[in-house]
């Protein structure tokens, strides 16, 4: 389970402020278990957005946004509606937001924050990774995560080590900030670079025991059926 929680509605309105036509895409995997997604939340979001003057160009659930083949096949059927959209609001973990950004050329904006689960990537096979930083910034970075894709997890743009669009750590590795720059330039959103927070709050990255109980964090550990004692091992 990749545990993710809804971003506050105020923040969602702020990050959608530049976009009129919004396509809402939900993941039918972990967000269902976490109660941060699913059909009901998508309908709620749709109603809220329409109330605030947005046009909702489509609403879609895909079973697992981390399943590349599934995402590709299902989004392909909805291209006409996507063409009428200015942005996609993705109700999933950070992997799903990045997966969407990697597959469709529209701004992909996170509806949720992903909590740290120390490395779980779902079924997504590609370079897009989510570190569960707890304060998703993908709406500002063209759907490319600087926390996982930059070797230094920098928040304020490329370092002096980038050369020919590659990272100083490995010459074959793309510089995350070069990719972000190119993507934002293509989207006409270079101004986003000024909106990034200067400092990261690492408290969002630490998940408290309380949160682990409140969310469906430990679902895998729950024993849904316990055999009667009399039927114990022989």
């Amino acid at each position: 389970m990749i545990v993710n929680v809804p971003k506050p509605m105020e923040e969602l309105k702020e990050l959608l402020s530049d976009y009129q036509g919004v396509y809402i895409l939900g993941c039918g995997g972990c967000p269902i278990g976490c109660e941060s997604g699913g059909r009901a939340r998508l309908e709620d979001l749709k109603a809220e957005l329409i109330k605030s003057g947005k046009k909702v160009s489509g609403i879609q659930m895909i079973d697992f946004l981390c399943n590349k083949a599934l995402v590709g096949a299902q989004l392909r059927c909805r291209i006409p509606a996507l063409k009428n959209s200015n942005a996609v609001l993705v109700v999933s973990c950070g992997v799903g937001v990045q997966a969407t950004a990697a597959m469709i050329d529209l701004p992909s904006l996170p509806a949720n924050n992903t909590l740290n689960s120390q490395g779980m990537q779902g079924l997504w096979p590609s370079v897009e990774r989510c570190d569960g930083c707890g304060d998703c910034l993908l709406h500002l970075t063209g759907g490319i995560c600087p926390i996982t894709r930059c070797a230094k997890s920098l928040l304020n743009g490329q370092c002096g080590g980038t050369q020919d669009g590659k990272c100083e750590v490995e010459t074959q590795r793309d510089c995350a900030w070069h990719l972000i720059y190119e993507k934002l330039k293509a989207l006409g959103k270079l101004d986003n670079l000024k909106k990034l927070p200067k400092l990261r709050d690492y408290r969002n990255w630490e998940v408290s025991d309380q949160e682990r109980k409140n969310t469906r964090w430990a679902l895998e550990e729950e024993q849904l059926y316990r055999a009667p004692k009399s039927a114990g091992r022989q």
Partner: protein
Amino acid sequence: MSKLKQALEAGNFAVTGELGPPKGVEIGPMMEEAEKFLKGRVLGVNVTDNPSSVMRIGSLGICARLVQAGFEPIYQIPCRDRNRLAIQSDILSGYVLGIRNILALTGDHPSLGDHPGAKCVFDLDSVSLLHTISTLKNGKDLSGADLVGSPKDIFAGATVTPGADPVEPQLLKMEKKVEAGAEFFQTQAIYDPDKFEKFMKTASRFKTPVLAGIVIVKGPAMAKYMNEKVPGVFVPDSIIKPLSEAGKEDRPKLAIDLMAKLMKDLKPMCQGFHIMAMGWAKYVPDLMQKAGVA
């Protein structure tokens, strides 16, 4: 008060130098080099801090020794090794030791250095470090708590790579650095005056002094290395060819002449030079003389 700041604010052309501390505590030769070749010639002396992620005696200690010896150091702070508590604390420590100039850097990744298995920190980066310095100068720390005495006379600098391709991300970051509190820039090594002039046309709108980076090309092997390995640095054939054709013993003089010519071309475009001698400090006085900035 920083003399570097005074000079740049008065519109005077400023030259800074650089020292690379040794791996160990034997700092005699380095201090001697500073006394002989830099003292009285440059306004400020940068002191690198674990450059290229290679462990050496730190910048803070050497800067303090330079203050004692009558120099004005420029304390280089990378974000690779220390979190925001340590960095704020070190800035305050430096201040009471008389250090007034700071150069804020992101820093190289540890995997490039001699302790490749080290944990990298990067809690801050160059921009957030400049923001941190501004916050301290205003009498607060990053948590918003009041300081008992603020390091208000710090003169904060940053770096930029004018030769980067594309250069626009560099300019975007330069703007963020200025907004975060950068008061001067020292650039990566420059060899192409035309490209630098174009860069300065845009960069001048930030109204922040730029000290052009000067690295003496000692020979063709060094040029080849820089062209292949140093991001945003390109040594042209007009420098490589004469150095390749010259005999080994003639190279230092030729190298200095080539650099002096370059510096004369660059001088009208910038507010100062930052000379990184890389072991060739003994040629700095001659270079400055020939470039007309002695």
